[in-house]
């Protein structure tokens, strides 16, 4: 026996070491990618790409607070100067005028290749007459003051056309020459990081650099009162990761310490304590190993769920030690193991249902818990008995059990009150069914409320686009993508003209397709030709043809000009605009055309109709996000029902008695109803993970209800068993209850549902245990 024990321990140790080696080499990710769909649709893929590497995900908004307007502007300039030199930042904007001049020069220089109005008709006598007439008319307007010096070079007003497309959309407020908040009390900057939105390390580094440079700049200027506020998807990712990391450690620690304290107060033996933790440690390790092997990356929240797993997995060793104390191992195996095994099975089916979720966080959680519970049970059954041969005898828990027996004896009096409470709960839930659920994806986001408020404030101050509406084009190569963008743009122009959308951005505006450039160049007549046409066109005009010499030179130059390439945009902020909207993909290129809302809300169907035939796909990001969440929710409902059905099937096959099945299930269902109603009453808006929690109440709670079923099966429910059940329920409630402390909504929801649910499942099972068969 001793030898067998040694061999078993050695095998176990080897398995653990192998597991540890796998965990050591696993990739852990504490970012928010767990909410992104595992099998995205085309629309959702756009969402995922934007979330991971879209320009919006790389924008950080900065606000400088305190000091006076002049000092803030000074700090803003200083900060921009410092950050701009760093390779970590693609662009740093604060509204300084100098940066706009470069863009204007570029547009002016390349106006004949860029302007969509450049066609052969525009340079006929009639076309010139009309275009130049417009420019002269513009001179009569206050807006004309700016263009007056440009008329001799650009009488047809191509630059004005380009400029009006550049200036579209709202511009931030300004004070002392730099961007300011709406109230003018903060200086604003907009920073684009080089690091992708999904590169949380890179984002963290960028944010730290910004903070350090600001601190140094403020110190140099002697402004101790100046503060920096920062927000953006990058900060959200960094903060979420910090929260999740911190929580994983904190929750596991709390749960372990409390459970160990409870166990020690019962066992009063270090050897027993460490033996009973053996299955838990094995289970937790096996869980991570399984997830790592199957998914490659282990999410932080999955590990965070470990604190609940500890509480659940420790049950098996509690049963073993407490129940086998009096009867011995063999009798325990015969009498109790089948019940425990059935409980393990129901738990596995409950967690197993989650495996099929398209919500990656959920399927990982399912696999983690499933393998953890299974391993803990197997270790309890096959390893623990061998190792605990020489363990000290368990303290006699019969006195505790006896007290429990007395309590259980009076519990059935509570049947009617409980039924009434359940009825009231059910009524409440039915009447409030439209207000129970949180319909927003943000319900799952670990971003704190305070961070969200800051973000909203900064966003509105800087007028940053929220990029809610996008038209997306995928094409095999650059040229095809740009041509498609131009085609879709022409179709969107009609919506703009009708006022159905406010406007749109397109990379083709600053980087036209080669075909368009070629066509525009070809539509320019020779200088001599233009000269003779101008004579005719300007016969009655106040503008004399002989003043337009520079125009002829410009036309001649444009006819010789080489094609405009992406490199030519370097040094302008237009380059960023193009890069943001024109992205290389694994296969080909994709173009984003963000749409702006006009006077009225955007009608998705109208836009889709308008874009028909252009190959562009219209995506409303908010709708897609909400749809994604709704899909998750629908799917979780289906999976929960499937899990419940699986549990019912296992129990039915095992019990072969509808009456017994009903007796086991009734308290569990009542527990779910009462818990959910309770959550609603205390103001929790239910989401996906609460739903999963409901399934887990049944999956976990059934473990306890099944022991009462033994009573029905004419076994006596001895005091030791009662004590072990109470203890096991306590540790489970502690494990899940710890999750309820979490600030991460995904973990909090499971904890707050299953923690009370487990206790209630035990209590209700005791209350509804059949009168006749009670010992």
């Amino acid at each position, binding site marked *: 026996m001793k030898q067998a024990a040694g061999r078993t321990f050695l095998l176990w140790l080897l398995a653990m070491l192998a597991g540890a080696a796998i965990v050591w080499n696993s990739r852990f990710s504490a970012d928010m990618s767990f909410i992104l769909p595992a099998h995205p649709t085309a629309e959702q893929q756009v969402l995922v790409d934007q979330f991971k590497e879209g320009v919006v995900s790389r924008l950080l908004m900065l606000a400088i607070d305190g000091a006076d307007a002049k000092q803030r502007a000074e700090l803003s300039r200083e900060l921009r100067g410092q950050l701009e030199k760093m390779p970590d930042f693609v662009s740093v904007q604060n509204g300084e005028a100098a940066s706009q001049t470069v863009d204007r020069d570029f547009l002016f220089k390349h106006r004949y290749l860029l302007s969509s109005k450049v066609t052969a008709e525009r340079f006929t006598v009639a076309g010139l007459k009309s275009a130049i007439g417009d420019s002269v008319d513009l001179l009569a307007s206050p807006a004309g003051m700016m263009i007056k010096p440009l008329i001799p070079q650009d009488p047809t007003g191509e630059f004005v056309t380009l400029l009006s497309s550049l*200036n579209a959309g709202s511009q931030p407020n300004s004070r002392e020459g730099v961007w300011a908040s709406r109230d003018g009390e903060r200086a604003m900057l907009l920073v684009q990081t080089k690091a992708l939105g999904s590169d949380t390390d890179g984002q963290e580094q960028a944010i730290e650099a910004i903070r350090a440079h600001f601190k140094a700049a403020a110190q140099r200027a002697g402004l101790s009162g100046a503060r920096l506020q920062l927000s953006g998807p990058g900060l959200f990712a960094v903060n979420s990761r910090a929260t999740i990391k911190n929580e994983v450690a904190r929750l596991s620690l709390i749960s372990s310490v409390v459970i160990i304290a409870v166990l020690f107060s019962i066992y009063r033996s270090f050897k027993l304590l460490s033996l009973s933790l053996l299955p838990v440690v094995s289970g937790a390790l096996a869980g991570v190993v399984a997830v790592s092997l199957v998914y490659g990356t282990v999410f932080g929240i999955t590990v965070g769920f470990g604190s609940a797993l500890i509480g659940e997995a420790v049950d098996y060793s509690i049963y073993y030690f407490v129940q086998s104390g009096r009867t011995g191992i063999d009798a325990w195996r015969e009498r109790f193991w089948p019940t425990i095994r059935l409980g393990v099975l129901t738990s596995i089916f409950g967690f197993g249902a989650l495996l099929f979720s398209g919500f990656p966080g959920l399927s990982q959680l399912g696999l983690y818990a499933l393998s953890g519970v299974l391993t803990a049970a197997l270790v309890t059954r096959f390893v623990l008995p061998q190792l605990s041969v020489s363990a000290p005898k368990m303290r006699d828990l019969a006195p505790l059990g006896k007290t429990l027996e007395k309590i259980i004896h009076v519990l059935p009096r509570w049947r009617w009150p409980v039924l009434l409470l359940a009825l009231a709960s059910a009524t409440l839930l039915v009447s409030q069914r439209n207000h129970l659920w949180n319909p927003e994806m943000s319900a799952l986001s670990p971003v704190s409320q305070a961070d969200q408020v800051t973000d909203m404030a900064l966003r509105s101050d800087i007028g940053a686009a929220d990029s809610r509406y996008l038209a997306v084009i995928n094409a095999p190569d650059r040229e095809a993508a740009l041509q498609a963008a131009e085609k879709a743009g022409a179709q969107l122009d009609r919506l703009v003209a009708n006022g159905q959308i406010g406007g749109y951005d397109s990379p083709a505006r600053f980087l036209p397709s080669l075909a368009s450039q070629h066509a525009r160049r070809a539509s320019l007549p020779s200088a001599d030709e233009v000269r003779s046409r101008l004579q005719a066109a300007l016969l009655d005009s106040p*503008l004399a043809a002989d003043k337009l010499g520079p125009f002829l030179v410009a036309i001649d130059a444009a006819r010789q000009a080489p094609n405009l390439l992406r490199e030519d945009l370097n040094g302008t902020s237009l380059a960023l605009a193009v890069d943001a909207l024109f992205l290389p993909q694994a296969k080909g290129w994709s173009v984003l055309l963000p749409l702006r809302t006009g006077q009225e809300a955007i009608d998705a169907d109208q836009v889709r109709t308008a874009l028909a035939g252009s190959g562009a796909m219209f995506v409303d990001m908010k709708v897609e996000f909400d749809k994604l969440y709704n899909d998750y929710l629908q799917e979780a409902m289906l999976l929960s029902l499937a899990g419940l059905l699986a549990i019912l099937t296992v129990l039915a096959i095992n019990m072969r008695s509808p009456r017994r099945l009903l007796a086991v299930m009734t308290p569990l269902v009542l527990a779910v109803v009462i818990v959910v109603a309770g959550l609603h009453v205390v103001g929790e808006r239910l989401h996906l993970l609460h739903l999963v929690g409901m399934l887990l109440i049944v999956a976990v709670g059934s473990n306890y209800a099944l022991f009462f079923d033994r009573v029905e099966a004419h076994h006596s429910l001895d005091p030791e068993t009662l004590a072990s059940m109470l203890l096991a329920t306590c540790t489970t409630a502690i494990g899940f209850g710890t999750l309820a402390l979490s600030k991460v909504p995904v973990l909090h929801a499971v904890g707050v549902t299953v923690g009370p649910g487990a206790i209630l499942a035990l209590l209700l099972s005791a209350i509804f245990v059949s009168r006749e068969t009670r010992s």
Partner: protein
Amino acid sequence: MKRLIACLFLVFTLPAYAAFDVAQLMNDLAKHKGGKAKFVEKRTISLLDKPVISTGEMSYTAPDRLEKRTLTPKPELLTLDKDLLSIEREGQKLSINLSNQPEALAFIDSIRGTLTGNRAALEKNYGLYLSGNSDKWVLTLMPSEQKIAALVVRIIVTGSKSQIRSIEYLQADGDRSLMTIEAIETK
């Protein structure tokens, strides 16, 4: 002769005429709470052989809303709401926040300050020189900032009581514009 010279001296050098001074004019103008007027604007531009003329209506609502609706040669709507200047033309709308553009703001303040009788706003960027009497006054604004002076040499506003009759801009490049205003109704 001496008296004449003395008189001329008085007229040309004193920033404010004793009997009718800037304070009084500003006071009169401030009482004007708004109204509608027709305008004819004639721009003389060296680049063009003839002046360009635009006509339309403008309305002013105290204290900070100004609307200038050009009807010929091209319809155009210019609105000034606090510091937000919008120009709508041929279906396109361009909005400029004037607080971003100190020079443009100074320019706009010349007309807005006059309309509202806001002496402080005017004196921030211009020296004020008034001549005439309450029934027929001429207010000359001379830019005091170098940046503004590089754009406009002087602005001459004429009027009668609280009603502005004309505004003339003389630009640094020699171009000029004269806007004559005729009230449609006064509130």
